[in-house]
């Protein structure tokens, strides 16, 4: 391909504060429609906005994580337009003085680190949710006023893959900073993309196309790759790209025209007169940043240093912030970090995958996982007993010690008891020591099998093995 794509992303993050951006209504957009609504959210005459301090703290954390220059005075503007989902007839946003400017994030592409510059991040409020039917529409004001952080990149992205990695990185930051659950599927993270293409070596930008309705990170990559292909083919055929807004059709995996761009709406921005500029103290800004929950890179460093577990395992645990938190909880009770990691990856995650669940839906207390791992480590139970007990623990969220007792799952560790049984087996098969000495290692396995049979599998295999070799050598 002879063309280079120039891509910029605008991402809206729904912030997980307790209340809305400018009102005291609970920030619970998913509740029964129109139950989480304050007077301001429906724009009753005379209602006034109040800035949510927690939303500001969260925006500061993101600004910091994105290496942005923070504006220590908050200004808000009104963005005026009429739309059925916009109760006040304007959105309160930060047009002229965003809380953060000129930052960047780093992504890894093809083994190399690439910097994506961030132009700005600002705070604003969400609109109503609309539900359209054939002859009518319904409005849900629960979402009206939910705090949003908008993050706008410079046009530094070149491929669908880079866009995906950028959004993944962004999601990692907002989830680790506990600013949002970052779920694209339910709209707590929303991406609009701008893409144009130009021949390599040309500075002038091509005609910009906006692509919307991207409901997953995978779709972002697919939609942009599709667009690059579509626009390139179009240009090669001599057909110019037209300025338009397209949406991604998930079924067809292609972008389709939504509307042809006509004149842009004039939003008539002006200062929100009901919010005087708010000067943020140095202490407030520093406190917001310093109390930010550990971000990915910090966590990676800490897991490596404190737990000393395999890097590949750390990356699995850190793929989900909640999983990492769960591991931290388990690790509080134990020193067998690698064993806990192994257990979580091979047992806990497999159950979750099978049931298509998230770690937050996993109800087992971390200390029980630790108890189970300890039992296995100390060889008090074997791995098949471990599996059985784990199933019960998952079902009832009770201590594995209870189930161990119920199963009668105790290993025989006493050497003299095991030795007596070994002697019994050899007595029944007197040729075994000679076979063993003649190099038939099969004899060793045979004795082990018989010992396990006689003890219903309860003999400590390590102890038994040692004693068997000793006896056969005699």
């Amino acid at each position, binding site marked *: 391909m002879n063309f280079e794509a120039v891509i910029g992303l605008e991402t809206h993050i729904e912030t997980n504060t307790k209340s809305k951006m400018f009102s005291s209504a609970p920030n619970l957009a998913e509740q029964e429609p129109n139950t989480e609504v304050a007077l301001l959210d429906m*724009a009753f005459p*005379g*209602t006034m906005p109040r800035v949510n301090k927690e939303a500001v703290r969260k925006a500061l954390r993101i600004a910091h994580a994105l290496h942005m220059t923070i504006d220590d005075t908050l200004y808000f503007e009104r963005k005026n337009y009429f739309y059925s989902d916009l109760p006040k*007839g304007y959105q309160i946003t930060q047009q002229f003085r965003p809380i953060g400017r000129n930052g960047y994030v780093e992504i890894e592409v093809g083994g190399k680190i690439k910097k994506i510059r961030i132009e700005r991040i600002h705070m604003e409020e969400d609109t109503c949710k609309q539900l359209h039917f054939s002859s009518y529409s319904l409005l849900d004001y629960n979402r009206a006023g939910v705090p949003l952080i908008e993050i706008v990149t410079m046009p530094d992205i070149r491929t669908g893959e880079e866009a995906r990695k950028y959004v993944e990185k962004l999601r990692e930051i907002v989830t680790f900073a506990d600013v949002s659950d970052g779920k694209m599927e339910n709209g707590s993270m929303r991406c609009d993309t701008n893409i144009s293409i130009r021949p390599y070596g040309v500075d002038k930008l091509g005609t910009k196309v906006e692509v919307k309705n991207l409901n997953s990170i995978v779709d972002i990559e697919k939609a942009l790759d599709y667009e690059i292909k579509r626009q390139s083919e179009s240009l090669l055929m001599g057909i110019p790209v037209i300025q338009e807004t397209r949406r991604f059709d998930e079924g067809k995996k292609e972008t389709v025209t939504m509307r042809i761009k006509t004149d842009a709406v*004039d939003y008539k921005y*002006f*200062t929100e007169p009901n919010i005087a500029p708010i000067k943020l103290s140095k202490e407030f800004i520093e406190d917001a940043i310093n109390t930010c929950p550990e971000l990915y890179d910090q966590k990676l460093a800490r897991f490596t240093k404190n737990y000393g577990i395999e890097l590949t395992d750390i990356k699995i645990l850190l793929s989900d912030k909640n999983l990492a938190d769960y591991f931290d909880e388990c690790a509080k009770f134990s020193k067998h970090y690698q064993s806990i990691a192994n257990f979580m990856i091979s047992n806990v995650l497999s159950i979750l995958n099978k049931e298509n669940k998230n770690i937050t839906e996993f109800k087992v207390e971390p200390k029980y996982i630790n108890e189970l791992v300890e039992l296995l480590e100390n060889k008090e139970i074997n791995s098949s007993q471990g599996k059985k007990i784990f199933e019960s623990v998952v079902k009832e969220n009770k201590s594995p010690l209870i189930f161990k007792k119920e199963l009668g799952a105790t290993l025989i560790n006493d050497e003299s008891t095991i030795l007596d049984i070994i002697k019994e087996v050899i007595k029944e098969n007197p040729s075994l020591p000679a076979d063993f000495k003649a190099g038939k290692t099969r004899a060793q396995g045979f004795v082990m099998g018989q010992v396990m049979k006689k003890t219903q599998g309860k003999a400590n295999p390590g102890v038994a093995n040692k004693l068997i070799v000793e006896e056969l050598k005699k």
Partner: protein
Amino acid sequence: MNYLDKTIVEIHEALLSKKVSVLELTKEALKRAHENSDNAFELILDESAIKKATELDKLPVPKDNYFFGIPYVAKDSFSTKGIETTGSSNILNGYIPLFDATVIKYLNDANAVLIAKATLDELAMGGTGTTGHKGITYNPYDASHEHMVGGSSCGSAVSVAAGVVPFSLGSDTGDSVRKPANNVGLVGMKPTWGLISRYGLFPFAPSLDHVGYFTKSVEDSALALNLLSKRDDNDATNTYHKRDDYFKEVSKDIKGKKIAVIKEISTSIKDPVLAKKFDESIEFLKGKGAVVDMVSMDATLLSTIYPAYFIISCAEATSNNANLDGIKFGPNYGGNTYQEVMYNSRTRGFSPLIKRRFVIGSYSLMSDNQHDLFLRAQKARHMIVDAFNEVFKKYDAIYLLAAPKTAPKFNEASDKLSDTYLLADNYLAFGNFGGFPSMTLPLGFKDGMPFGVNITSKPFDEKDVFDIGLALEDFTNLKGLDINMKHGEDK
């Protein structure tokens, strides 16, 4: 003589000494409201007022709560829970708010008795008292109904001037309390911007909007500020600045106070009766030990007050009223699309005058025009405020006639480019530009119609305004004025 003709302080004394009951006061207020023929009321609240008055009479009258049992009226742009509030606009016909404005709450908590909602110029946009959906509100001093009350707080002004109540709530964006106060001989006060919570006041232009109010005396005005200026979290612009005990501290001792009379405004007033009385009042103030100087300002700058005010207020208004779309509240006339619903509701809901203001506001905010209109008006606003702040560096207050004449007649044409119009008739908005505390009080009478003076001071220097006002009452002898009080005539 009726106790309802007295000031709040006097009525409170009468209630304390059981010379009158809350119910008697309330019934008389309701009766007068019904008998009033000036078209001052959107709604008269007989039932709830009588109920509250009856309950209050079972309670002891608290000595330090002057508002206990005082009947009052609120402009219909204050949100009142469970009581229809229309802003005198058809677009809000039938709208019953779910909450009380903060000042309504303060008054109700103090057990004042709301007896009516008063008319206004539609959505507080206007200065004539003629544009509300119920038609023209008339001046109670003129039985022939030829003179304006002025606006936008027309019904609130009538309520106190006609002796219906001793106190009413209004709002002041350009001069909407202080101008009608001039026209009906009342004390009309708007304090520093941010001192009284605006929560629940239907916004016209928030950067200029103030809660204001009418009383019959300066003392009552200070008393009301004590109650209304309590800090409120619901209004993020409500100041944390310390409040004074305005009532306790008000004093007619103005010895050494420095007062500026703005020459360009004062000399543009040609009416000899008003000018003479004003000059006499200056001599009186000087006699009381005040220093009164004629101070010159840039006339061109002063003449931009009105156009700058108009651009800024219209621009903010178009945005503030964008919530009135027929979807959430107010009449919904239907439509096949959301655009049609909005179009139908706004087409029928707003009068042509309002639409004109929206067009002007929208036009001046458009990105192509914003630099030349809205931002330039903002720049002018800053220059004007800076110029007045220069005056306030040397003077405690600015003292001027509130208007160049008594209440104008409806059919009277004014030359909108004359100095009288631009300087003397519309200068009061400088108080809104700078958020300065500003009060109009009656000075005298000409041909049976009252006229007033205005005192404006630095932000949070309400005390200067009240002190000078209180001193002036000894000169005017118009303390307690309403239509039932005998008054003189200036020649």
